[in-house]
């Protein structure tokens, strides 16, 4: 992470105008708070790759192609247990099915973009960048400025993820197991989601989804996550829109799921 914008000046830099650089940079700043988490999670994934005896280059390869941390870990776990290749791939795709939902929610946001931009921005789509893009898009009515903003959100975030995994594979387990680095996963998603919970349907979607995930916890292959998300969306879409006041109950309150 650099601390200042890539000095736009008055002339285009690399054929890209100063306004585009500024919009790109605004996007990068918007997602920057999540980058340390991504790097730490990347270090952990890279270390995991070498720990199970795979070559170090496989870590950045996986991060640059699959680009979805949870599914990459699931693949490593499946390979470690000598699961058939098809099961390993299918598990990853089930976990990543949620990206189809993000893709659908980004369709209106990307609607006015040229095809090559859609292809590139789809490739760079992550949970974090999709959420930031959807939440911030209404502030960017101009499609040109919007796509540079979203590129700034998505591109650098994927870059630090790949760099983090490469570093993790080279350095090995630099992070002690006692630190329980897995906490990064819920923490990052709380940081993205909770500040953006501003309507009753959104609060309900989060609450219903949480309850269903816990009730269906015994389903295999992470299906509880997929079904929880789908039911949360389906049921909460019946709740009328009305601004939630800031005192709304946090949907991820740990006590919320204890009853199931």
């Amino acid at each position, binding site marked *: 992470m650099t601390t200042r914008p890539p000095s736009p000046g008055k002339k285009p830099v690399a054929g890209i105008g100063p306004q585009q650089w500024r919009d790109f940079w605004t996007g990068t700043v918007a997602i920057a708070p999540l980058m340390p988490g991504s790097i730490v999670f990347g270090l952990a994934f890279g270390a995991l790759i070498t720990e199970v005896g795979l070559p170090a280059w496989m870590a950045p390869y996986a991060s640059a192609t699959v680009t979805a941390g949870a599914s990459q870990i699931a693949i490593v776990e499946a390979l470690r247990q000598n699961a058939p290749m098809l099961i390993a791939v299918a598990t990853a795709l089930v976990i990543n099915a949620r990206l189809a939902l*993000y893709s659908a929610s980004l369709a209106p946001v990307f609607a006015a973009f040229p095809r090559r931009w859609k292809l590139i921005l789809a490739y760079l789509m992550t949970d974090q960048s999709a959420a930031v893009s959807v939440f911030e898009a209404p502030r960017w009515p101009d499609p040109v400025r919007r796509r540079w903003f979203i590129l700034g959100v998505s591109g650098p975030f994927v870059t630090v993820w790949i760099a983090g995994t490469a570093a993790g594979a080279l350095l090995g387990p630099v992070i002690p197991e006692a630190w329980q680095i897995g906490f990064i996963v819920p923490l990052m998603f709380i940081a993205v989601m909770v500040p953006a919970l501003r309507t009753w349907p959104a609060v309900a979607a989060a609450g219903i989804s949480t309850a269903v995930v816990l009730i269906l916890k015994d389903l295999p292959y992470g299906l509880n996550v997929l079904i929880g998300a789908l039911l949360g969306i389906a049921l909460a879409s019946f709740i009328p829109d009305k601004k939630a006041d800031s005192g709304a109950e946090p949907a991820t309150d740990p006590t919320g799921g204890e009853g199931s």
Partner: protein
Amino acid sequence: MTAFIVFTLAAIGTYLIRLSGIFFLGDGEKLPPRVRKALSLVAPAAMAAIIANALFLDGGQWRDFGAWHIAALVAVGVALWKRSMGWTLVAGAGAFAALLIAGL
């Protein structure tokens, strides 16, 4: 070699998943309001699902109550108070570290 093939196939499949909504629902402006509303709920629902699965469960079993739950509660509280990603991460990580050091 097996790992290379698995990652490559998963990458291709995942890219197709990423493209699916953008290209099937290309002209989102013409979608009915109900569908648009459902799509706006995707992010909170999917993220809550991942949070619940990672926070309350550990390999399909209930996670024992402790540092994870308390630090998450601190993070949620700060998130609602400050409405800021950065402060939420700092508070959550800080609380978690403090709880681990305290032996929870």
